[in-house]
């Protein structure tokens, strides 16, 4: 999926959810998104960084530099504020999914009555 209308807010949700479980650097995070979504969500992988930077600036993420195999990586993890933000995003997402699912699975005659 790469339709921007459907993707609004989704990368932020996925990033926070995955980083809540484990501290990761950008490349690791993108691979985790690909693996968890079975490649259903395809974005330019580089776009994850502006999202990470913006979340960090909002206080939802924190970062630290760590040397791994001779290379310095920037690892991101979720803050307490980010955890609360994630809970709100999950709640909003669940409501949207529920509403859309109800609409698309509704019987045609029921939809006609609306």
């Amino acid at each position, binding site marked *: 999926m790469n339709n921007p209308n459907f993707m609004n807010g989704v990368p932020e949700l996925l990033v926070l959810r995955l980083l809540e479980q484990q501290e990761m*650097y*950008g*490349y690791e995070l*993108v691979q985790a998104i690909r693996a968890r979504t079975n490649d259903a969500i395809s*974005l*330019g*992988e*580089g*776009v994850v*960084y*502006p*999202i990470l*930077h*913006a979340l960090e*600036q*909002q206080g939802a993420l924190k970062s630290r530099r760590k040397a791994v195999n001779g*290379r310095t*990586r*920037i690892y991101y993890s979720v803050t307490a504020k980010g955890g609360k933000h994630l809970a709100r995003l999950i709640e909003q997402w669940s409501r949207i999914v529920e509403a859309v699912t109800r609409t698309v699975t509704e019987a045609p005659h029921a939809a006609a009555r609306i």
Partner: protein
Amino acid sequence: MPQPEFESLRQRLLCAGIAPRHVDRYLGELRDHFDDLVREKIAGGLDRRHAEAEARSRLGDESVLAETMLEQPGMRSLVSRYPWAAFVLGPIAMLVAALAATLAIEIAVLTLVSQVYRNPSHLPPPAWFITMVGFWNATPSLVAPVAIAGVVYFVGLRQRMSMRWVLLGAVIACTLGAFQQLTFSDNGYHGELSLVSGLMPPFSRGVFLEGVVRATVNLTVAAGFAWALSRRGVRFSRFSGA
């Protein structure tokens, strides 16, 4: 990704007002990500050329990478958001600070020297000292304005600001600074430190004309510095609306 592509992304982001520190970090992470992708593809059996092509495609189109950064709130630098503060108020504040620092240092030195030379016999300080103080007094009107113009160039270049803002800042520093005149005199009985401005009452034709001469010197030096930068290939953003 070849370096020129990142360079064009850098130019694009800086010209759009993204803070240099965010740009540096973004490009650094993109480079690392690109390297990781290339390694992954080579490990998967691709040759380097195909691995780089695949990595470039996975990283995303430059316009998408730029747009995503530009959409994020809070990434623009203060200089690009408030250029009037950086290039109008900034030079004025720096001139005031330079003047205050010059005065503070001079008063401290004169106080110290007066302890040595005036007590108990009230001897005048030696001529070389008076000459040195005269040179020092040129700091807020000749040295500081040109140095501040240099700071303005540096900030403007780093943020790829419009040339008109950079020139405005440099001209403000060079002219306003030039009209401040700090003098010290000592006739052997008492020393006097005075500060007058050619732009403030009481207006003195002599002080004003001296200010014009100093402003001309400052602007010539600052223009020479800008010319030297342009000879080295450094360019301001001529067409940016920022």
